[in-house]
């Protein structure tokens, strides 16, 4: 569904990403982790078609990406800046559908369902700045869901929310993904989160970046904040990724 091959990115002659090659099958949820500044955001922006790559290609459903592809949605880390502050929650979620000329009735259905899925159907008339951080990020997620993308990209979406909200949002993402089967690329720097969420975890090296490891997460499909995280296998995987990243940092 999503293929990244030989991706390279230089900023003004300085190599940030050296060579990335990996792919996602339809309906897969893959997490990408790596040390800070290794190029996770760069990778994601290249995949989203927001940034031209220096070399290599990205393709979605066989189509080469040159600009933002039509069936892709992104949830940015900076939720506070990705919502339109002068629009209500419902207007924010609705806007992309309006621009796509989705008929009114279907549009309302989609918006309502998406807000319900993130438990925000009681505040459609509120403005983003009247909501807590976690709620704002849920609005951004609702907007992505309502858009019905084939591919969903998320860039450290929970980096700025507190731990309890974060756990809730993680479970929300898992539940939605299981229900809708959207191909999802999830970027994070939190190893626990990556192991908890992903079917696979792609570990990146420090910049100039390559793929250090593409790790299959062999935990039960049904996950739970307490029991899954308490599994010895979880600690194993966690420790393994942690050691990898330490190695990556050390090698820098």
């Amino acid at each position, binding site marked *: 569904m999503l293929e990244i091959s030989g991706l390279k990115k230089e900023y003004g002659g300085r190599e940030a990403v050296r060579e990335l090659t990996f792919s996602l099958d339809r309906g897969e949820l893959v997490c990408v982790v790596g040390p800070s500044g290794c190029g996770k955001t760069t990778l994601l*922006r290249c995949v*989203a078609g*927001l940034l031209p790559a220096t070399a290599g290609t990205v393709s979605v459903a066989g189509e080469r990406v040159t*600009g*933002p592809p*039509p069936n*892709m*949605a*992104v949830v*940015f880390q*900076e939720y506070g*800046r*990705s919502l*339109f*502050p*002068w629009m209500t929650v419902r207007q924010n979620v609705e*806007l*992309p559908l309006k*621009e*796509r000329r989705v008929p009114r009735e279907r549009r309302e259905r989609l918006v309502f369902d998406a807000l319900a899925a993130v438990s925000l159907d009681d505040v459609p008339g509120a*403005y983003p*700045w009247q909501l807590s951080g976690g709620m704002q990020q849920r609005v951004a997620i609702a*907007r992505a869901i309502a*858009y019905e993308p084939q591919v969903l990209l998320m860039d450290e979406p929970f980096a700025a929310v507190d731990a309890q909200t974060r756990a809730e949002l993680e479970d929300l993402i898992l539940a939605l993904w299981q229900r809708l089967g959207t191909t999802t690329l999830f970027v994070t720097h939190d190893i626990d989160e990556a192991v908890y969420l992903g079917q696979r975890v792609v570990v990146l090296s420090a910049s100039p970046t390559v793929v250090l490891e593409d790790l299959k997460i062999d935990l039960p499909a049904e996950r739970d904040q307490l029991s899954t995280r308490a599994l010895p296998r979880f600690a194993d995987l966690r420790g393994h990724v942690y050691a990898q990243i330490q190695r990556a940092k050390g090698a820098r």
Partner: protein
Amino acid sequence: MRVLGLPVLLVLAWWAYSAVADNFYVPDPLRVVRAFADTWFGQRLLDDALPSVGRLAAGYVVATVIGVGLGVPIGLSARLRATAEPVLEFFRAIPPPVLVPLIMLLVGIDDSMKVLVIVSGCVWPILLNTVEGVRALDEVLADTCRMYGISRRHLILRGASPQIMAGLRQALSVGIILMVISEMFASSSGLGFTIVLFQRGFQIAEMWSGILLLGLLGFALSTAFRWLERRILFWHWSNRA
């Protein structure tokens, strides 16, 4: 009580000074108030205050249209901005009053001259703030628009509106100043003209009443502006309850 305390104190101080000092140029407040009523409640309001305000409004609107209209494309295109910036900086730095003689040479002395003088001063704060506002549009929001195929018209004016409003606010005070100055040249009506006429005729209390009226006008306009701004920028952090 608190709100009124200081103004009352100031007026009392004025009164005391005018009584003690017997300065020809500082008449006592009562005379000024009487002069105010005699001068401004009547024909003068229609003949002088209204045309002034009308010209101010016209100049302000024209400056807004030009400022925002030029500011958006200049803000969006880095190349255009680099080309225009030194020229804009130069024109902005010219004190608007020195343009009065030139504008008079070029367009004459009727109302259009006065409106143009107001435009020539008001347009710069609006233009430069619009450029800055458009240029500093949130990148994440711009990326969001690209990702979800949202056309940028949803973003540009709204996103830049806090800056544009800041420019409009500056332009308002510049506009009042230029309204007065333009009327000090080649005029036969207007608040600025009338005040100068009083000054030349040494009608001191009347002159003070004109200054007072200008103060009231400035105060009323800035209050109205603040009200409007709150409505338009209800979503901006500076206005959130």
